[in-house]
Each structure stands twice: as C-alpha cells, then as structure tokens.
C-alpha cells in the first residue's frame, strides 16, 4: 500500500511537471520541425507569458486593480486567472507573429549558429527589458483561490495519494485540454497536415505549391502561444522573477524534444511526461541524484535513439 501510494504520488507530481514541459516542448518542436529554426528565445516567451499573466491577474482582481478602480467589484467569481487564461495565449500568439516576421524570417537561410545568436540575444533583451520596466522583484505565484465559487486553495484528498493541492490537479487538467486540442489541430486539420508535411520535408511542400510561408507564421505564433501559456501555468505554482525564462523553461524544453524527437508533437508530449516522471521519481526517492539521472537519461537517449522517441529522421539528421 505504501509503495502504491508512493507510485501514485510520483505519477501525479510527474504529470503536473511533465504537462508544463510538454507545452513548452510542443511549441519548440513544431518551430524546429517545420522551419528548422532553433529558437533560444523560447524561454523568453515563457517569461512573457508569466508576466502577462501576473499583470492581467493583478489588474482584473476584483478586490483591487484596474477593474476595481473602474467600479467593477463583482463578476460572481474570481476573474483574474480566467482572464489571464484567455489573454496570455493571445499575447503569445501576437508576439510569435512578430517574432517570425522580424526575427526568424531573415535568418531562415542563415547558418544555425546565426539563429542561435540572434534568438539568444533576443532572450537577453526580453529579460533585461522586464527588469527595467517591471523591476527585478520576485512576485508571488498567482493561483486563484476560487473558480466559479469552488475553493481551489485547499488540498483535496485523493485515493492512494492522500492530500494533493487541488489547484495543481486543476492545472494538470487545463494543461492536458490545451495539449489535446493542439494535438487534434495538428493531426486533424489542413493546417496540421502542412505542419506535419513540413516537419518531414519542407522543400517538397513548397514544390507542391503549398504557401508554406504563411503556415510558418502560424506555426511560430502557435508555438509562442503555447510557451506563453506554459508560463502562465508555471506562474500559478511558482514565484515569478526575470530569470525564470532561462532557468525553468529553455533547458527543459530542449531536453523534452531530445527525448521526444525533434518535429514530433507526440514526441514532445511523451518526452515531457517521461522527464516529469523521472524528476518526480528521483526527487522522491534519491533526490541528490535527480539532476544526474535526468541528464544521464537524456544522454542515453542521444546514444541509443538519437532521433528521439517519435522524431523524424529528416529533422534529426
């Protein structure tokens, strides 16, 4: 019973961490797979999502903020986080469109090192801008205490696991709804078909007369929106400060696609969850080995299956 309880707890914590990795990984992998563009500013998009969420959450909180000062003091529920759930992906999408047009496009035909430099530079600019405009302060996480009148600030008792934070349970559900919708969009829509074809052979797609450049913008924007959304989810459970983009998002996103395979949405989901469960399991059993085992696992994947769990050979080459 104790072992079962331990396993259940590891899986649940792993799911929660893995869901954030998967959201980050999907965004990074579709950009890398479709455009063969290495985006080191992916962490910065996570940062933008976290801060946008923070600002929306604060300004639409009904006990203070912009809405409150305008005389709107009740909507019948705590609206800050719900507003952020809508606004953050839209902001991420818009920034993604701009990034594709002004940063990525001029570098598509340039060497990968140039892409790395320009996107890393962009990440630094975003981080420094946040520091200068909003300040280097650390902000509390922004989880709401109620959703539609239901208290989500208290832990709930689950079979086997015992008490588990109810908000974390909810964000696992929210994250997987978004992951599921993204998966369906890529598997079942024309847009998704172009993305999938692009990840296998973008040159062929172009030769077939499909306007892949327009799709590029959309792919980039969707990837950015997912990263921003991951930032919002992250901000609801952890503090927000200017360095989180690199520390919490960029490296996990790359590890995720190494495990899952570049260019594969299924791979990003699987990779994220595998990494989440490994970290959770190691932390709960041999915590000092958690980071070592994580990187050993990724190194092993590179040796045994360099294209990743679901990666296409083309992108992996």
């Amino acid at each position, binding site marked *: 019973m104790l072992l079962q309880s331990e396993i259940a707890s590891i899986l649940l914590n792993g799911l929660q961490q893995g869901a954030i990795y998967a959201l980050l990984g999907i965004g990074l992998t579709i950009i890398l797979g479709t455009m063969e563009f290495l985006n080191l500013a992916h962490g910065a998009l996570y940062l933008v999502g976290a801060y946008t969420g923070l600002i929306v959450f604060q300004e639409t909180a009904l006990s203070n903020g912009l809405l409150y000062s305008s005389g709107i003091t009740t909507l019948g529920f705590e609206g800050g986080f719900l507003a952020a759930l809508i606004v953050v992906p839209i902001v991420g999408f818009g920034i993604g469109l701009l990034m594709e047009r002004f940063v990525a496009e001029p570098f598509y035909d340039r060497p990968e090192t140039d892409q790395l430099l320009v996107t890393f530079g962009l990440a630094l600019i975003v981080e420094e801008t946040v520091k200068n405009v909003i300040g280097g302060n650390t902000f509390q996480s922004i989880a709401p205490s109620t959703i539609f009148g239901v208290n989500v600030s208290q832990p709930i008792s689950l079979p086997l696991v015992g*008490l*588990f*934070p109810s908000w*974390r349970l909810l964000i696992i559900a929210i994250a997987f709804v978004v992951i599921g919708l993204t998966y369906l969009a890529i598997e079942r829509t024309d847009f998704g078909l172009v993305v999938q074809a692009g990840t296998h052979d973008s040159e062929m797609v172009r030769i077939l007369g499909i306007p892949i450049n327009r799709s590029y913008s959309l792919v980039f924007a969707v990837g950015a929106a997912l990263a921003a959304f991951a930032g919002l989810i992250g901000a609801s459970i952890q503090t927000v400060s200017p360095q989180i983009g690199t520390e919490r998002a960029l490296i996990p996103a790359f590890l995720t696609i190494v495990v899952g395979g570049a260019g594969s949405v299924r791979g990003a989901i699987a990779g994220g969850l595998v990494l989440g469960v490994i970290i959770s399991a190691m932390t709960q059993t041999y*915590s000092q080995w958690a980071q070592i085992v994580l990187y050993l696992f990724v190194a092993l994947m590179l040796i045994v299956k360099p294209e990743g769990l679901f990666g296409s050979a083309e992108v992996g080459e």
Partner: protein
Amino acid sequence: MARDTTALSRRDVLKASGAAGAAGLTGLAGCAGIGGGGSSEYPALGNYPVEGDEVVFGFNVPQSGSYSQEGADELRGYNLAKEHLNNGGGWVDDWDGLTGDGVLGKTVASVEGDTATDPDTARQSATRMINRDNAIMITGGSSSGVAIAVQELCQEEKVQFQCCITHSNDTTGGSCVRYSFREMFNAYMTGQALAPVLAEEYGEGLNFYQLYADYSWGQTQQASMEQFFTEVGNWSQIESVPTPLGTSDYSSYLSDVPRDETDVLVLNHYGLDAANSLPQAIEAGLDQDMEIVVPLYNRLMAEAASDSIGGIFGTADWNWQLEDDASQSFVEFYREEHNRAPSYGARIAYTQTLQYAAAVERAETFYAPEVIRELEGHEYSGAGLGNETMRGCDHQAQRDVLVMQGADPSEQTEDLLLNIVSQTPRDDLGYACDAGPAAECELGDYGDE
C-alpha cells in the same frame, strides 16, 4: 565605542616608541618614513600602499541570480556608507574615529561587481577589483558559497574582505580566514536562539523533518537545527533531505514528508528558494498537519511569500522595528533616500563598511595586518544591536539575534511583514573559541610575520 585593550598590536608598539622618532622605526617596520595611508610606513602588501587622493572599496554583490534583490539592497547600504564616509551624516557622525572627510583623508571611491550569486563569478569579479581597480577592501556577497570563495581569494591576495549576508557556520568556522570579518550571525546562533522559543511554543519531544538547500549554508544550517532542536527541545529528527540550490518546484520533496509522523517541518531555504518552498508547503496543506519553520528569514522571501508567512517562526539579522536610537536613525536616513525601510542586508553592508573605515582610522594606516589587529577583539555598539564584539579567534561578531514571526497577511504592509518575537542577548548565544564552529577555525597569517 570602547576598544579591546587586551592585545597589544604592533601598531601600539610603534606608537609607544614614537618618541624614538621615525628614523628609529625604520628597522622595525622595514621601510623608511612615517605617513598616512598612502605612504610607505609598512612594506607593500596586497594593494597597500594606497596611491593618490582616493581609496577604492569593492562592492561585490549579486546583481543577478537567486539573491539579486538582496544584492540591490546591499548596494544601497554600501552607497550610503560611502556617501556618509565622504561627507558626514548617518552613523558616521557618532562612530568613533570617523570624520566624514573620507578615510585617512582620502576620498572613498567604489567599484561594483556582479557575483551572479555564483562563487566562481564572484571570485572573478573580486579578482578584477583587486588587480585592475586596486581595491583596498572588498565587501559583499549574499550566499555563503560566495563569501567563502571570495574570502579565500582575499586571504591569498592580502586584501581585506568584509562579509555581508553569509549565515553558514563555515564562513567563520572551517573556512575562516584572517582577512575576513563577519558582522552577521550564523546558523549555529540561529539554532541557539530559535530552539528555546520553538520548544516553548510547540512543546517538547516532537518529531521534525528537514529540507535544506544543498550547499555550504544549507548544510550547516540543517546540522545546527538538528543539534539544537535535539538538545534543547528533546525533539527527534525523522529525516533531513537536501534540495538543489535554485529549485523552484518542491512538490515532490513535500509529497514525501510523512504527515502523520511529522510535528514540525523545517525549511532551510533562503531567498527565492524559500519564496517557493513555503507557499508550496502550504498549498499542499502541510500546515494543517504540522508546524512549519523557516529558520532564516529575509525580506525577499517574506515579500514573495507574504500570504504564507503568517505565524511562522524564524530568525533575522536585524529589523527596522527595533527601537534603539541607532536602528531608528538608520531607518530614517535610509528612508529619506529610498522611501522605504531598509532590509537587514542594507544594515550589514553599511555596518561592515563603517567598521573597516573606523579600523583604518584607528590603525592610522591602510596596511592590512594593522587594520586586522584593530578589528580583532574590537568592542562596539551603535550598529543597532547593542554591544557587540568582533571576536579575535574566529572573526565572528558576538551579538544579539532576533527571533521573528511572520505577520498575519491582514496586518501586513510594504515594510511590516515580520514581527519581532524576542531579541536573544549575546550572552545566551555563541560558543567558546575551542567549541562549536570556532573549533574548526584556523585563521591563517597576517602577511607580515
């Protein structure tokens, strides 16, 4: 401020034999001529002698990384100290030996560095300050890993280091050096001050479970908690689990805490780490089953976790609510400049800079061995914590320690996040020179032996 007169320094000998004249001293001091900080009364050592009209202090603080907000407030404290040393004002007006006209007549200039809360980066930054900027004294850091790395460098380079925020026992214990002094208290003293309060509050014979940041500070912190909770409260440790510095998600660690066995959960985390671990522990409902303790508070953590700190005990170096004249005057002039109350990081930064400057004035030279001898055993007050001694055997200040409790979120204001529970007098704290962390301390040489 009284001076410790128990040990005759070489400077005293020189002064006493002043009647013999400068020429007569040359053989003893090894060089010709008597003068201020810039002349060659002593042989060249480190960045001595100081040339020109300015003397450079190096402010080496974290401007990025986990402790960057602490670094920003330290820098505010340092710059106030520089301003007051050069132009008078603040504590300089009441501090023995300080004139408000620079130090030994030289204007204090400063260089700033970013340690990035990383020992290697901090060492590189301090090296630049010593070699390129000719800094006569380095101060700063937030993180014991940084303090220990930089003080080792300073010992090698024979340049004085004045610690800022560093709470590990090792700083003035196993890793102590002659060229470094610490005003802040340490983890051992936190255990001594906190354990009786917690035993009184929560009772005896309890079980406690620890998480600790896995580096120098966290390791000595958890060891001290284990020692004093066991000795004072007759508590039993269930387990002590290391967590990497910079962890942001503690949920897996917290899932492993046995709720039915644990009476007290000790979170030995600081800064951003504590700002994450404490709210996450409360989010997981652990506070419903056990008491939570955060042994070392800081403002960053208290601000970032303000909804979670209500009623939680810890210790602090100093607090703006202290009512003594020195504390209130510090709060006043800091507030005038920065429009809010200072954190304890700012007080340590300010105090350590003034301590160094005053020691130079007393020694009448920047020659480090003499400045060090002036600080060793020096007794002082007026730094906001009553009478203090900078002990000679380990360079650890013997001073009072504050036990704090998080204010209820409904009472909190921008400045008031913690309430002072008690001020444990220094006579009830500390340890002999051959006991506790000091037993492991070997200070090393002065450089003029």
